[in-house]
């Protein structure tokens, strides 16, 4: 029997991957299928689920009411929430790339011995608890927080009256929080792809007459694209589903899809509506990611090679 297993390579492979597939099927695929089913259901008493087939949840999500599909019943509330999440994710990604690139570049050009230390310096905030990092920004941005404190002190020196800035509980605060959270996730992939660039390419470019800027634009930047691509996947997708940052730094003012879903499951106790929202979120994310990876790939070159 052992010899049979030995000969059947295909069976060996299947057995090796079996435990993983059990987990993926049980905790990913089946839950998603169940979410889909429930999204067509209706809210039952005690926040349970009545299994039927009803498009009510989806109708509500696009802005109408069940039974009233006329423009007068239209409320763009949920569509606004979806749009806000999308734009926030884009803004975060762009800002993160702009901030991460110089740092990655700096580390990649540093002497080899220093690089590990510099990288660890990037990783330490990452390993510090996620919720704690958001809390830190609460302390910095609030009315009696660090920034206002420092500004007020300056104003006092100059003899001016100072009205504290309202920074917390604004969309700006949420953006800052998101950027802060996800910055390390972009630094590492960009660094990895920069580090893989063969130094002789720079020499070749110089030999052919390119100055620093030209070399950067025509050689470095394109070759670091896989890193940016991988980093984008690591930033854009989580931001789409985030609710903690918007909850703590945005309060009631900034509601994202994640907050919506969370509230449905906890406060409003409508798992059917929450499921529908969750699936719409997933669909949006997958669509954006699909078009994105079609154009740019997955950036897996930074892992292999």
């Amino acid at each position: 029997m052992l010899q049979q297993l030995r000969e059947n390579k295909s069976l060996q492979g299947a057995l090796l991957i079996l435990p993983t597939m059990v987990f993926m099927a049980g905790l990913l695929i089946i839950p998603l299928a169940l979410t889909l089913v429930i999204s067509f259901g209706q809210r039952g008493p005690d926040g349970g689920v009545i299994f039927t087939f009803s498009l009510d949840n989806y109708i509500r999500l696009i802005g109408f009411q069940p039974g009233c599909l006329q423009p007068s019943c239209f409320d763009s509330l949920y569509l606004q929430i979806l749009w806000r999440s999308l734009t926030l994710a884009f803004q975060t990604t762009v800002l993160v790339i702009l901030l991460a690139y110089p740092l990655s570049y700096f580390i990649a050009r540093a002497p080899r011995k220093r690089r590990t230390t510099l990288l660890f310096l990037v990783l330490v905030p990452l390993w510090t608890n996620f919720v704690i990092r958001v809390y830190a920004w609460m302390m910095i941005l609030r009315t009696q927080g660090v920034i206002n404190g420092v500004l007020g002190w300056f104003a006092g020196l100059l003899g001016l009256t100072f009205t504290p800035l309202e920074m917390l509980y604004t969309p700006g605060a949420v953006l800052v929080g998101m950027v802060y959270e996800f910055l390390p996730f972009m630094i590492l992939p960009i660094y990895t792809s920069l580090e893989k660039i063969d130094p002789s390419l720079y020499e070749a470019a110089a030999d052919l007459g390119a100055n620093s800027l030209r070399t950067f634009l025509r050689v470095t930047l394109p070759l670091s694209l896989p890193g940016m691509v991988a980093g984008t996947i690591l930033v854009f997708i989580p931001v789409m589903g985030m609710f903690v940052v918007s909850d703590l730094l945005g309060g009631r003012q900034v509601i994202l899809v994640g907050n919506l879903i969370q509230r449905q499951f906890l406060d409003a106790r409508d798992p059917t509506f929450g499921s529908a929202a969750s699936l719409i979120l997933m669909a949006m994310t997958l669509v954006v990611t699909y078009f994105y990876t079609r154009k740019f790939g997955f950036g897996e070159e930074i892992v292999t090679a």
Partner: protein
Amino acid sequence: MNAQRRSPLVSSMAFLVYFFLYAPILVLVLYSFNASRTNILFEGFITSVGPLQMQGSTVVQSPCGPLHWFCELSKNREVMNATQNTLTIALTSTIASTIIGTMAALALQRYNFRFKSFSQGALYLPIVIPEIVMGIGILVLFSQVFGFINSAFGLVGNDRLSLGLGTVIVSHIAFSVPFVTLIVQARLHGFDKSYEEAAMDLGANELVTFWRVTLPMLLPGVLSGALLAFTLSLDDFIITFFTNGPGSTTLPIYVYGLLRRIITPQVNALSTVWILVIVVAVFLIQRLQQTED
């Protein structure tokens, strides 16, 4: 890349970004020594050591001196529980996901079997969907399944199946495995099969070959994967949020709960301790790496 002419522009931007990364952390650490209990304004360090004395909401004297909040922290039962849970979950899920993730990487990299592309795709899924979608899905699954089992078997009270340590661990394994697999797969990519052939040529069967040759050579990749799985589990909030129950609170969940209620410098003290542990761990890892080289 070698050190060419270092542009001062890039260097200064880099330092600014480092500052941006660390400023909040420094603020956190500073406030963990805050004399003010309400922790709104920084009112200086607690200087005198002695029995507890308060002035309004300011701590004037404490048996632990400036480390007052750290002492309070050590007496906090909930924190200890949460820490224990966090570590238990992280260790268990790391070990499990590393083992099955490595097996999966071997399967995908070296074998062909039916549903191979489906499996590879399924593994990418947790990476390309937002965590909340996965969290919701698992919550929905468990509530329906548990609900069904509880009513079918008439379970009540403590016998009822409910969310807890088990559900959290199992969820953590589910989201860690794809990352472990990806990392080990990358390591397997350029792996020279002749070492394993040599071992078999010398009389080792498949299991012995794996244990004495393949695994030691794969170890750096496996350890990286394990480290990543550990980090992901330790820091996870969203999925844990939807799959935990009473008694399985982890540190991130606990802190989040605190932040919505009362904020004392104790939270900062917790943060500072956490940061210290990380820094020490990183330092040790660096030392280990250096001795290896």
